[in-house]
């Protein structure tokens, strides 16, 4: 075996390694996009039937809401819970946070490089629409945004009125994990009742 062949072989191996790593990165992006199609269907079905519908058989979560920002033409189907697995497919509705339209703060979190990549473009005054699994839509108005530490969010579960917080990682174009989060705050627009007659 010559030195040249050894070098060529090495180059091929390194190229394969590079491709694998690149593919892993690209797969995260692809998964995020593909899953949303399946989730759209599952969410539509759960609105129609009134029952949680799993998007695929082995899923450990289910769609709970649709988040839309009409001014940007962006939307995403949110999932129950915010485990790493759920966030790979869509924004997660934080376990301890309120249901949309209910008093308290409703919190959705998603990755900055996939579903909430648009969060930086949301401006004060923009409407954010949240449709629940029961089919009712609540319209929130953006009141501001801030950068907080993950363990000092200042987001209270029992805040007054119905609040909405959309959360992603800060800096928005960062490449590594960090302790900071970007939060868009919105508050429920007039008219929506807190509890309905049954």
């Amino acid at each position, binding site marked *: 075996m010559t*030195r*040249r062949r050894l*070098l*060529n072989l*090495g*180059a091929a191996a*390194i*190229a394969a390694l*590079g*491709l*694998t*790593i*690149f*593919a*892993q*990165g*690209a797969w*995260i992006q692809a998964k995020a996009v593909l899953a949303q199609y399946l989730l759209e269907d599952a969410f539509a079905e759960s609105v129609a039937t009134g*029952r*949680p519908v799993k998007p695929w058989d082995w899923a450990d979560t289910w769609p709970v809401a649709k988040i839309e920002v009409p001014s940007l033409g962006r939307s995403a189907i949110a999932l129950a*819970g*915010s*485990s*790493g697995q*759920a*966030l*790979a497919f869509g924004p*997660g509705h*934080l*376990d*301890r*946070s*309120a249901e949309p339209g*209910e008093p*308290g703060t409703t*919190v959705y*979190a*998603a*990755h*900055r*490089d*996939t579903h*909430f990549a648009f969060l930086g473009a949301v401006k004060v005054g923009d409407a954010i629409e949240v449709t*629940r*699994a029961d089919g009712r839509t609540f319209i929130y108005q953006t009141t501001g945004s801030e950068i*907080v530490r*993950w*363990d000092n*969010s*200042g987001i209270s*579960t*029992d805040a007054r009125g119905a609040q909405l917080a959309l*959360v*992603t*990682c800060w800096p928005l174009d960062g*490449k*590594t*994990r960090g302790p900071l*989060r970007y939060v868009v705050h919105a508050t429920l627009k007039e008219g929506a009742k807190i*509890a309905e007659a049954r």
Partner: protein
Amino acid sequence: MKRLLITFFAVLATAIAAMAATFVKPNDMGTGALLFKSNEPGQFVEAPRVASDFDISVTGQIARTRVTQQFRNPAKGWVEGVYVFPLPENAAVDTLKMVIGDRVIVGDVKERQEAKRIYEQAKANGEKTALLEQERPNLFTNQVANIGPGETIVIQIEYQQPVRQSGGVFSLRVPMVVAPRYNPAPELVAAVSADSVEMYTVSDPVPDRQRIEPPVLDPRSNAPVNPITLAIDLKPGFDLGEVKSSYHDVNATGDASARKISLKNPEFADRDFELTWVAKSGKEPAVSLFNEKVAGNDYALLQITPPEPQAEQKRLPREAIFVIDNSGSMGGPSMGQAKASLVYALDRLEPGDKFNVIRFDDTMETVFAQAVEASPENINYARSFVNALEASGGTEMVEPLRAALRDSNAGDGSLLRQVVFLTDGAIGNEQQMFDLLGTMRGRSRVFMVGIGSAPNSFLMNRMAELGRGSFTQIGEGGQVEQRMRELFAKLENPVVTELKAAASDAAIEVTPSTLPDLYKGEPLTLLVRAKELKGDIAVSGMVSGRPWRQNIALDTAVPGSGISKLWARRNIDDAEVAQSLGQISPSDADRRILALALEHHLVSRVTSLVAVDKTPSRKPGEKLTRTDVPLNLPAGWDYDKVFGEQKPVLEREAMLDPTLIASTRNAPAAQSPDAQQQIDLPQTATPSQLLMIAGALIMALALLLQFWSRRTRVA
């Protein structure tokens, strides 16, 4: 070139390792590691381990115990460990020490919120700190913050408790593990408001549910955790007969009047420890009296065993309501013991008695529409019903109690009405049970039969006290017959009624203020406080229909220790009982308990012990992760019966009702002042772009190498 490559990979590896830090994902771990949810959603941390040592010395009627808990952090980051553990329901807990290297930091008793504030402050400052809180009188939480990577922190907790005595047998029970509890779901209560819009509020029977639900390991896939060691120095004050450990093998050494007992084998915290002893025959003490002087006051503990009735008593006919728990937590040997006990009880019924049987899990069934004659046919029918019972489902205990207490002939004095309740008591809504029993007890007397390796003895004892009955514990199959026989001796009739204790001096306070009836073999226990112990206490009552009276001279007391704390603890119990009976309001009870607990340095529902090491150890910027210490499943329990069936029921309900999801999640936070109301945010960065950049770089490197190889050929 080679060096370049190595440097490149080293940099890449460091970058990936830095991303991992303290947190791990389940797939990153090998076997044998225990992973638990941290406060950052979706991320897990390796749980801290706790080893416990119990050092107990029994002097006369009082046992003082020092529990040493070693918190070891196996993870690579800083952690806060949260350990939920049981103590005897009548323990007066007065000491918390934190040992770091050769320094000992002694904890202080503070009002609960104040203690919590001190702890949170120290935690944020990076100082080592420990907080001991009472969740139930027999259930405590120990939180230890800022345990460094690989570090061990030792916590010592000390308490005293009176020795239990019944039928000449003395016993000491050391609970070791908190059994998983069934916490009934919050109820939605409709309330109509003025503008005809219906509003819903939530009433949670277990407002502190998230504080008493530590993770439990499935024994089929996990080695037992939380090892224990135990030593007892037994000096009962009389010559000893047989000394026995009920559920563990022990070594015992010593002479006629003192024994040293230790565990024979390595054990884990998965079942209660019980030691029983009797006096050498003929040496049984009829009266024992100990005293202690603290802060200008004299305290005394007095125990009297009334004489056995001379003549055989006439057996009174009774109406017996048997309630049997067949919920999932009773799965395994417990169900067998409960069934055997109930069948034994049915066979003891006599013509002229009436009876009924109620079984419950998260549903309930009553065998007969109302209590029926104890005819052979009826008994046979009930026996086959009991024999067919299987353990499954949740534990909704309130409705069966209500059904058992519903008394259709309340005025009928010809029958003794007795409720015999067989359960492991694995519920979190004790207060609901007490409140119901307090208001509905009427003429019924309630006898609790505790089943299994780790029953909720707080529920059992308080129910027996409120229900003016007694509590019997059956921990394994072999005990069924003997203990049920003892219980039935008690069921026949209270031996001593109309008990009164009067001190010769009005300045002498005697607790409890209202004395219970005594059943066969039970002693009367009194706690006394006075400026000076002198004169005597006259105890009187009716023993099987005849008057009985005994004077005890207070100056015959033998010095003891810890009696003032037991006095305070008994008064705290009295305040709680008075609250359940509706005699005082909950806030009055809180006020009384606070004064007692602060004066006597005790942990209670309104006071906690907190210790802070002022030397900071965790630097600002280093992350602290909070995690629960996992518990063993109590011995003999069936994991699937508890977790395979009970939890999904609740989850299924919650999934179908979005309002319920919202309420179960928000209610505890809104109602409990301890609940953390601020939300922590999850990790929302993916390594996607980093991976893509690294991949592209590596491919570029390959191209470079290829290019270089070509140049080599040319050259």
